[in-house]
């Protein structure tokens, strides 16, 4: 009979990594088995890419030239990754409203592993989502025009942003009373964030107020940075707002700032939510 028990085990940094790995795997199984979450990162990116390119693309003329197709893929990456971050909020809120987190808490595991694993699983699904957009784009004729390292950076900047947003969504998930309300509030925040930006249309013809919002929206900075790195048309380069002039720096600052704010806040909320 196997006599190993957890009681005899040392709990070092390695065990923390194992805790995170076990929970990340668990979260990925969830995404695989939940049709809605899975479609968010597979069907939706394909569908949105095709719809936007062929419906919007027929009506948008880019200042400075270039095809809408080449312009749109970075924007679609931004939109899909931003909206799919909602999975974090819904997933965490679902866990908290079931007894499963309580079970984890009676185990001698590293407590923050729940949050870290959630954000890592979401980073992986973001990568899947990004691949679907990219493959769809390539299939319909989108071409990046840059070196391989630059293209990789163009995607990395999205993934960093997606990781940052998912910490914000983790906070939302823990502040919400139910998964439904997390989803409702998430939509109201994330959709305008994705849409009031340079992601899908150039901002030049927006009303002034929206233009200002769009130019300072982190989604715009990330999209502009990525367009530049991918060698795709980037009309925002002509805009004088600071983030549009320095999109790489701006998007990195945005992402790091969001993580610096929301990761500690998430762990505070988690502690509060699980202590009574």
């Amino acid at each position, binding site marked *: 009979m*196997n*006599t*190993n*028990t*957890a*009681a005899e*085990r040392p*709990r070092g940094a390695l*065990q923390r990594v*194992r*805790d995170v790995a*076990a*929970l990340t*795997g*668990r979260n990925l*199984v*969830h995404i695989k*088995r*939940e049709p809605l979450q899975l479609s968010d990162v597979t069907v939706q990116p394909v569908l949105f890419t095709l719809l936007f390119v062929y419906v919007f693309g027929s009506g948008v003329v880019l200042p400075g030239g270039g095809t809408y197709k080449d312009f749109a893929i970075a924007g679609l990456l931004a939109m899909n990754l931003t909206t799919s971050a909602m999975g974090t909020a819904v997933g965490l809120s679902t866990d908290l409203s*079931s*007894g*499963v987190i*309580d*079970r*984890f*808490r*009676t*185990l*001698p*595991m590293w407590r923050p*592993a729940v949050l870290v694993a959630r954000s890592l699983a979401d980073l992986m699904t973001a990568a899947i989502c990004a691949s679907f957009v990219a493959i769809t784009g390539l299939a319909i004729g989108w071409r990046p025009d840059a070196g391989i390292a630059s293209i990789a950076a163009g995607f990395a900047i999205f993934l960093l942003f997606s990781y940052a947003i998912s910490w914000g969504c983790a906070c939302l998930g823990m502040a919400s009373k139910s998964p439904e309300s997390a989803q409702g509030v998430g939509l109201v925040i994330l959709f305008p964030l994705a849409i009031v930006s340079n992601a899908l249309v150039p901002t030049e013809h927006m009303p002034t107020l929206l233009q200002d919002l769009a130019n300072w929206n982190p989604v715009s900075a990330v999209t502009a940075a990525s367009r530049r790195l991918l060698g795709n048309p980037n009309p925002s380069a002509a805009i004088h707002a600071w983030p549009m002039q320095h999109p790489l720096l701006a998007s990195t600052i945005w992402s790091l700032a969001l993580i610096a704010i929301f990761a500690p806040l998430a762990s505070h909320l988690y502690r509060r939510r699980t*202590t*009574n």
Partner: protein
Amino acid sequence: MSGTAMIEAHDLRKSFGSTVALDGVDLQVPGGSILGMLGPNGAGKTTAVRILTTLALPDGGSARVAGYDVLTEPAAVQRNIGVTAQDATLDEVLTGMQNLVLIGRLSGLRRTQARARATELLDQFELTDAAERVLKEYSGGMRRRLDLAAGLVTRPPVLFLDEPTTGLDPTSRVRMWGVIRELVADGVTLLLTTQYLDEADELADRIVVIDHGKVIAGGTAAELKKQVGGARLELTLSVADPAASAALSSLVDGPVHTSHDGRRLRAAVSAGAGLASTLVRALDAAGITVDDVEVHQPSLDDVFLALTGHDSDDPATAVEPAGSDADLEITRT
């Protein structure tokens, strides 16, 4: 470990806003024994378990589990306990196997060890066939068995089972009892909460009755029964007869309760040799015929009713058919 207390609590207090959940609870569970914590919904049982399993902090008092302080050494406590909570605490979306492996890994087992242990447990709980099925497809009984298995992954010396059979059908309950008895044969210390009096009687070495956040009685089942006093007489007459009460009054202790239809009578008695014959003869002498007579030794139901002052004097409820006692679920009214 027997002899020393594996679970001990001193003056545990906990309030939620103005609701007092625990009002100074003391517990002592010697190693290798089962304590049954018996009480209605909302009595404070779950709160006590949550504090002892490090899920909640008490407002006052102290507790040690497996020798470790729940407040200052929670990690050590967690390494020594298994918990089966009342609410669903397993992952609905994972299979039975995945659930147990996950818990094993989070408890510090390597992946292969966790898998081996999960296989062993699934076999022990007769869930091997359902190992690869998602939990959503499990029946209530299967789920509870898996939940119990989840608490045993690391072979903890102390187990907490919070209402392990609530909501189960009678067959699944009896099966669960069998499983729990086997566990204790292995020497684990167990704290079991229940609303079912027969369950505590069936499984526990010692019982504490908890109500309004206080322990109102404690002891072995036999001691508790003694505390409540004598036996209980239940008579069914062929036809209702108001003279029956008078005929019985000198032979019973206290008042005779009569049901609405006048045919069923209930009273406390001091059980002794020939009591039933004496009673029937007395009624016979008064010209009253008897269909049925039963003298019950006190059950835990009686204990509970007597201790909590639950509506035990109402003749309408007092004269329930005896058979229903086993399924009686105490809920606060």
